[in-house]
């Protein structure tokens, strides 16, 4: 880490300097410390947080029964009328929290993966990791021979798919399109495995496992949200700690190594985090992996340079709850699963990247 500090020294000023570089704020702390804050990234984060708050309040208020913001907030603290209390605290709030956490985890996983593979398309949803996690989680739901709790199985599945994709890509490397197509192949195999398991079991068990195949916030297994929250509590600080190293990792390996980065260890840590976050998010929301592509893209557009891990988490959470809100409001009383909404928005975006972009590194 020490070497990295030196490497980025051109980006910073000596503590004694009176002026901050362009585009940053210099924040003086008590003592001789100071912090340099990227102006654009901060504004972007504030904007995203603002949107997130507005959307959260909207999704607490809107539904089959519309509540006023005041009623909804009273419901959150259990001070409103009994009906509103129940609706908000038992139905809408848990769902909102699940959406926020899952979206943030998907997008952080995507951002980490993109940075370490140096490929914009290398997000868990596209290279088959969430299909792998889904297949294993479904195996546990329908009770195949090996049965662990769904989150544990999802982790194993995600890790298996990752190992397969990276292993098979081997000589081809992770930068190009080859890597992605191999991931799609791996994902197709796991997708058909899921279908196979659903075809073998009785129809009501298959119905119970169906949400896993489209992605919805409607059928969260008990405890999965808590597990995801714990995962994020560990994952967010760990990810933030990796951000500067990942920024250096965007250069060629020899450069990164000569700057004192332990490339192998950083890659492994980032990969481990990405797979873990994605798998835990899958146990909550099913395979909504396109959030992992779009969240980081939005964050990158807004905040400019660097590896926008925090911004990605915000954008992913926003995307998730917004899509869920749209899915709930589109044709009540029916509810469109969030996975479908995300696919309808994310598909054209992915196409646009593929057909227009010359450059694949993030």
């Amino acid at each position, binding site marked *: 880490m020490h070497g990295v500090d030196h490497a980025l020294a051109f980006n910073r000023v000596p503590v004694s300097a009176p002026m901050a570089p362009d585009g940053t704020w210099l924040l003086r702390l008590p003592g001789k410390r100071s912090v340099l804050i990227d102006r654009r990234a901060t504004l972007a984060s504030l904007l995203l947080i603002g949107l997130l708050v507005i959307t959260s309040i909207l999704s607490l208020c809107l539904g089959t029964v519309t509540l006023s913001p005041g009623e909804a907030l009273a419901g959150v603290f259990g001070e409103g009328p009994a009906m509103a209390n129940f609706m908000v605290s038992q139905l809408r709030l848990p769902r909102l929290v699940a959406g926020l956490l899952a979206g943030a985890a998907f997008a952080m996983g995507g951002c980490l993966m993109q940075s370490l593979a140096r490929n914009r*398309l290398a997000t868990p949803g596209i290279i088959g990791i969430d299909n792998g996690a889904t297949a294993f989680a479904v195996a546990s739901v329908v009770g195949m021979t090996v049965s662990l709790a769904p989150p544990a199985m999802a982790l194993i599945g995600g890790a298996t798919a990752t190992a397969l994709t990276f292993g*098979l*890509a*081997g*000589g*081809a490397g992770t930068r*190009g*399109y*080859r890597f*992605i*197509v*191999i991931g*799609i*192949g*791996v994902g*197709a*195999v796991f*997708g*058909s*495995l899921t*279908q*196979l398991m659903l*075809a*073998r079991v009785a129809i009501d068990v298959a119905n119970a496992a169906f949400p896993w195949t*489209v992605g919805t916030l409607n059928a969260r297994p008990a405890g999965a949200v808590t597990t995801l929250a714990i995962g994020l509590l560990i994952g967010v600080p760990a990810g933030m700690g990796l951000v500067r190293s990942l920024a250096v990792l965007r250069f060629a390996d020899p450069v990164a190594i000569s700057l004192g980065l332990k490339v192998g260890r950083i890659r492994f840590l980032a990969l481990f985090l990405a797979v873990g976050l994605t798998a835990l998010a899958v146990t909550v929301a099913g395979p909504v992996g396109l959030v992992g592509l779009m969240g980081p893209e939005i964050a990158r557009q807004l905040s400019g340079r660097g590896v926008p891990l925090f911004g990605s988490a915000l954008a992913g959470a926003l995307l998730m709850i917004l899509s869920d809100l749209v899915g709930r409001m589109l*044709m009540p009383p*029916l509810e*469109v*699963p969030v996975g*479908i909404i995300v*696919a*309808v928005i994310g*598909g*054209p975006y*992915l*196409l646009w990247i*593929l*057909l227009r972009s*010359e450059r694949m590194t993030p």
Partner: protein
Amino acid sequence: MTNAGSTRAGLGVTFCGAGIALAIVCLASLLIGAGNTGADLALATLLGQSSNEEARFVVYELRLPRMLMGLAAGAALGVAGALLQAVTRNPLAEPGLLGVSAGSGLAVAIAIALGSSATTLRISVAQLGALAGCLCVLAAARTRGVGSDPIRLVLAGAAFSGLLFALTSLLLLLDQRTADEIRFWLVGSIAGRSMDQVTAILPSMALAAVLILLVIRSLAALALGERTAVGLGHRPELVRLTVVVAVALLVGATTAVAGPIAFIGLVVPFAARALAGSDIRRALWLCLPLGPLTVIGADILSRVVVQPSELPLGVLTAMLGAPVLVAVVRANRLPSL
């Protein structure tokens, strides 16, 4: 061209071998099944030595149409894959991967949601959808940087078909009746199809065959390069358009009755080229036995693997086809077309 004779003889042997294997698989598909009509009883029924009503029904009403459907679907998908690969000059171009099947799936879903249910209408609607999908693929292949990179086109196709599938599922949610009618169809299967459905797709297949025979020489010339083909007096634009119409006819008809069956159009031409070389005319002929061989073989497997229930055929072909896709992509140099 000194050894053209021996190559042609070799091709003949390969073709005969594939034909014999196909005949065996067809027979096996009549004899093997998930129900309690065993192979010996089925054989006796076929030879007319059994008066078991149930066995007659199973063999002639269930397994025979299914086998014929496998023949038609396999040949159509194999040939369509080879044609699409030749016209985009991309060894990975597969109707399922590029979104052509998904296009006809969406078209059928829309048609059913709007109130149609007739089988013949469904076929023409599916073909229109497939045609739209094909034209999108051609347009994408024209985009700068995409057409020259086979893998990028496939990625765009995967994104495209993901989008179309999402739209289809959205439609299914809207309308319960549509959902009930096509949920099982969307998985891709040749089980439970009637003789009428088999005969309904024959006219389109015949029309597609005529179109292919008309342009096959020009298509082979196109493989030498656009300029060479023009110099030889062919018209590339016309050839491409004809081929795309033929592909749409084939894929649309198959998808209308059997649902989207993935990866057949990748695996079969891949094997055909490996056996017959890259000349499109030879590869196409070899696709005719190899396609049904793959589909019917996979169909038999789908009955046996999870007895007493059955596996949807689309699931099985994905499991067979995805490793082939990975293998093709992993090869250091993509085979160029």
